[in-house]
């Protein structure tokens, strides 16, 4: 019944070598993960750099080819579709990119940027098109007069909204947001986060929210999956994860969030040291002989942990 269901997804990048440059090994960027999203919720994907978050998101978007597995969107496997069908379904899934600078073509005007999907999927007269673009610009809180401007005339937060407006024109149901605010300044970050919450309500969107900043994830997400080296180590509601982290890796991530209260800094530092030594000492408890995590096991209705 899930809205989006990812089953046993694997994405391997080949490593070539040897005399004939054959594939000699693989980078297992995503190594057998499964999770599901319910409509209207925000699902957070967290983990340290290089753990495979982006790869997961992009694979669902069809930008990267999966090695194996299923991505069921409204019960249809996106990975098995041909190009045309896929494009039709892809309309419902859109993406917000990490870097608001590189995700907008600097040579195009806002009008052309936002109208791009419309031109691909709908035949509109220029006047209709303009109206529609302005409608969405207004929705994302930008001056509709700005359609003739170029991206570099906007701040990072504004650019991020342009990107969102572009995604919205297709009336998507799912938005994958890959670190949508990590390139933004603190004050601008807030702007975008607020706004994402606003439109989520308005358009009944589902978010797959990728970030390494647990503060933000906690602020935004209903459920959270913790990734480690291409695999899930823990999954649960925000509450489960923050108040009752089970896996040592999750604990480490949480302890790494700097505390905003300077009074706590000594404790915070001690906590980190404790968890670090626990991480070192009880490594075997959490990882199998190959250094891989164990399969997820439920410890409550909502909470799953990878423990033996």
């Amino acid at each position, binding site marked *: 019944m899930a809205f989006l269901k990812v089953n046993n997804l694997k994405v391997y990048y080949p490593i070539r*070598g*040897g*005399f004939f*440059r054959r594939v000699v090994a693989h980078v297992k960027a995503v190594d057998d993960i499964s999770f599901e999203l319910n409509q209207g919720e925000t699902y957070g994907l967290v983990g340290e750099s290089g753990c495979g978050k982006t790869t997961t998101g992009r694979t669902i978007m069809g930008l990267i080819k999966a090695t194996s597995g299923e991505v069921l969107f409204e019960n249809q496997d996106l990975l098995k579709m041909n190009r045309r069908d896929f494009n039709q379904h892809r309309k419902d899934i859109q993406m917000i990119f990490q870097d608001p600078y590189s995700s907008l073509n600097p040579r195009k005007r806002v009008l052309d940027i936002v109208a791009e999907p419309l031109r691909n999927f709908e035949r509109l007269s220029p006047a209709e098109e303009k109206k529609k673009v302005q409608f969405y610009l207004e929705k994302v809180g930008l001056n509709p007069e700005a359609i003739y401007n170029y991206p570099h005339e906007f701040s990072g937060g504004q650019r991020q909204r342009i990107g969102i407006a572009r995604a919205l024109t297709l009336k998507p149901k799912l938005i994958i947001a890959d670190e949508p605010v990590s390139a933004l300044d603190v004050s601008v970050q807030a702007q975008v986060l607020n706004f994402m919450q606003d439109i989520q309500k308005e358009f009944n969107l589902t978010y797959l929210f990728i970030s390494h900043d647990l503060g933000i994830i906690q602020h935004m997400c209903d459920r959270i999956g913790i990734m480690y080296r291409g695999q899930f180590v823990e999954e649960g509601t925000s509450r489960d994860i923050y108040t009752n982290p089970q896996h040592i890796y999750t604990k480490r991530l949480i302890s790494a969030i700097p505390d905003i209260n300077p009074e706590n800094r000594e404790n915070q530092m001690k906590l980190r040291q404790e968890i670090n030594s626990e991480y070192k000492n009880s490594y075997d408890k959490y990882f199998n002989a190959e250094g891989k995590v164990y399969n997820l096991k439920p410890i409550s209705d909502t909470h799953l942990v990878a423990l033996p």
Partner: protein
Amino acid sequence: MLKFILRRILVMIPQLFILSILIFLLAKAMPGDALTGQLASNPKMDAQTLHELKQKLGMYDPYYVQYARWIKGLLHGNLGMSIIHQTPVTSLIAGKMWNTVLLGAAVLILSYLIAIPLGIIGGRWTDTWADKMIVGYNYLTYATPLFIFALLMLFIFGFVLGWFPTSGSVDIRVENGTFAYYMSKLNHLILPALSGAIVSTTVTIQYLRNEIIDTKIKDFVKTARAKGVSESKVYTRHIFRNSLLPIAAFLGYDIVSLIGGSVFLESIYGYPGIGQLFLTSIMQRDFSVVTALVMISGLATLIGTLLSDIILSAVDPRIRIE
């Protein structure tokens, strides 16, 4: 490393093979043959004998037969016979090739010796008068065709000042292998090499200068400065090495352009080499020589690019060849 070289050589073979077919077809597409030219000045030849001669030289065989014969010879290290010079192409080319290689190497070395300091000066002290002079020099050499420049050099240094010999690669009156012989070779080499070098500095200077200007503002240079490294050391240790990398990558291309440039230098300085030989052979339709030379220069280019890859991997730790 060895694997890398082997693989590259493996890739070369089909390339050279295609090249051989291409050049063979082109050669055959050219009007005339090697005998035509000879007869223009020596019309004492009846049609029958001419026919016989052509038959003897295999000129009537179908192309594929000629090609097969040629490629078979090639595999045995036999490049065929020059019809014009009545001598095996291998021995025809051998001597000249060393001259061209020598000249080419000298041009390359001299051009780097000139270009690198100038590029460095221009890049380090941008917009100073020295830099402006260098840029001016660069425009001038860029605009001057090699052959005009070489002639001017020859007139000035060869004839007016009389500092250098004006033709040939060595003084015939010195004994082979003696010290005087090598000095004479060197003496004959300087002027042509210098002419070629000066004209070919343009690209290197421009590239190096731009590269230094770009590298100057890189973060790691700031790091170096923040360490208190003196300005000159910042340049020598951090900027120059990084800027010189692309120059190493150019080596392969340089070899290609050297072969082109050798035609002019060799003809003006009466320096016997394969560039000139190629030109005459084309005009005289001495196809075995033409094809052989094209193959050789193709091979030289391949080796050149291989060499620059190896050099690059030696100086740049980021590039590793297995």
